[in-house]
């Protein structure tokens, strides 16, 4: 029973992490229809930025987080402006190839700048943990969980309750009509990509200190993020959140009670099952065909 409670707590903490990875991608991949292979690299960028600001420049940890998110946002805007804007009317394959290229360039740049030795960031939480009877969880991860929920809620409100969010949704539903209604299309594309990128950087900034920071850390993050987004349904923030928790549940219970050798397989098994019965994901938006 003690073990089960610990697994449940782990699942929530890990699920929050996964949800955070998923929402940034669901905005870009789900709404803009850009298969953002560089998502994991934006995540890595956020993590290294926290390392730079807090470990190397000695800034406050929480300030470093904010700086990493702001720079992630700026990098996203730059990628949109330089790489994606010129090929806006191109088909999905072209943008996919461009983003794969961006991923390779970014990962090799990280390797070149930071070297292969993994870095770690000290946080004000140290290695201390909250112990409640048989359950124990580190304060840092509780903080990350709370911050992730706040970011998810913020993104949800931004997309669904603000004028900017309404303009985003309108633009990606029908670009021409939105433009005729006076929406600044160029700005909306850039803002959406920048928002998705800053969420990826935020995930990296929050999770870098939990794990270790290395140039390859984005690969796994990317893989999980795509899985979560496909599971939850493209473009749905609620779907990505619940998708993240389902993936965490499958991995945690699978590793805890079935076999840890197949931990990652459990998550993907669930995704296959979901896609067999609901090919658009659990919470896909209704789409206009044609």
């Amino acid at each position: 029973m003690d073990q089960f409670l610990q697994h449940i707590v782990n699942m929530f903490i890990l699920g929050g992490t996964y949800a955070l990875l998923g929402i940034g991608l669901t905005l870009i991949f789900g709404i803009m229809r850009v298969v953002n292979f560089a998502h994991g690299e934006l995540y890595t960028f956020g993590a290294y930025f926290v390392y730079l600001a807090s470990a190397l420049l000695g800034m406050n940890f929480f300030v470093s987080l904010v700086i990493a998110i702001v720079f992630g946002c700026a990098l996203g805007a730059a990628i949109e402006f330089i790489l994606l804007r010129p090929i806006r009317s191109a088909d999905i394959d072209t943008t996919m190839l461009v983003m794969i290229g961006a991923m390779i360039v970014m990962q090799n740049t990280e390797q070149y700048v930071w070297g292969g030795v993994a870095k770690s960031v000290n946080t004000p939480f140290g290695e201390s943990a909250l112990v409640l009877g048989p359950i124990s969880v580190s304060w840092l991860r509780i903080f990350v969980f709370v911050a992730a929920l706040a970011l998810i809620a913020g993104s949800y409100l931004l997309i669904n309750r603000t004028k900017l969010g309404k303009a985003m949704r309108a633009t990606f539903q029908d670009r021409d009509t939105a433009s005729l209604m006076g929406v600044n299309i160029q700005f909306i594309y850039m803002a959406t990509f920048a928002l998705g990128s800053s969420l990826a950087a935020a995930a990296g900034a929050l999770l870098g200190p939990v794990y270790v920071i290395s140039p390859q850390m984005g690969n796994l993050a990317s893989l999980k993020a795509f899985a979560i987004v496909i599971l939850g349904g493209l473009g749905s923030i609620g779907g990505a959140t619940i998708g993240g928790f389902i993936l965490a549940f499958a991995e945690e219970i699978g590793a805890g009670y079935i076999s840890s050798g197949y931990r990652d397989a459990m998550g993907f098994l669930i995704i296959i099952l979901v896609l067999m019965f609901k090919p658009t994901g659990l919470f896909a938006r209704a789409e206009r065909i044609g």
Partner: protein
Amino acid sequence: MSIDRTIKLILPLAFAAGLVTQASAQTIKIGVNQPLTGPFAASGTYVVNGAKIAADEINAKGGVLGKKIELVIEDNKSNPTEAAAVAEKLITGDKVPVMMGAWGSSLTLAVMPKLMEYKVPMVVETSSSGKITTSGNPYIFRISPPSAIEAEAFKPMLPKLGIKKADFLVINNDWGRGASADFGKVLKDSGVSVGLVEIMDQSAQDMTAQLSKIKASDADTLIVTTAVEQLTLVLKQAHALGLKKQIITTGASQNPDQLIEQAGVAANNSMHLTTFLPWLPEDTPNPDATKYFISEWKKRGFNFAGTTESFRGYDGIRTIVAGIEKAGKAEPAAITEALWHVEVKGLNGTVKFAKVGPAGKESAQSTPNVYLVKIVDGKVTHPKL
């Protein structure tokens, strides 16, 4: 362009090319096949830097057979396919008579068919999978311990560590699964029971599920096998979960200094089986050689934490050069034969090869020392067991 001008341009080039060929004929080439980019980049670079110290030391003393040695260093990109391609390039392009490589077990295993094809020997400096020396490849000369040797060395320490029952948490590859099998066997032979055997994916960052299961078990010890990055995460996550078992790591790739730096208090009281003691040169088999190596390493401005990897590159090149010297000529067949008879005072004991694997096509394995170090209050100690 007139013919006259062309000749004027080509002549000096041809002359220069001639000079280059002559220069290389006066050196003896040694191929070095290491991961310099990709996930194992840091470790591979350390090994190469250790190899360079050995080469410079040997060349300063006049080289071998009257010639300087020249390391031909190639990057296998932490990728088995590349490792095999690099070996082929070194053998057929650079015509190296002997090589050192290729860090990881999967990289070395990928190179091995090339050794058979071209009959060129390779000194294996880091890989620890048992398969490398048991698959019948007579061109393999391994100076790093496979897990079976490590487990044997661990056996006499068992009673003093008070282990009654141990769980395992290992990386999901030849190395990790091999270690859990070899250590499990030694534990059972010594009357210690084996509890859970948990697996973690090579790229996994979150091991809390496995550790929660281990926390709930009745074993008193957890034996972990993985590389330093993942080990850092295991220690931090075990600490956060309040895991109270003693943690012992195997594989000699743990880099305690990096653990202290990155896992902080979570690294305290963890124990590590290592094959080098740079922290305590006096406790090593050849204290003077160790001190020389460490001072040279520091002089070159490298990170001290790297010495637990780089000493293998140093020992590897010195073993190869001893082989060349004994062979009397820089030819693959002669070096292969001579390596069987070398005796090199390495930083981690004497390198001397014994036969292992199927009869008639045995591989060579030396038996390096294995130490158990313990991290106490952020410092590496060597408890006398």
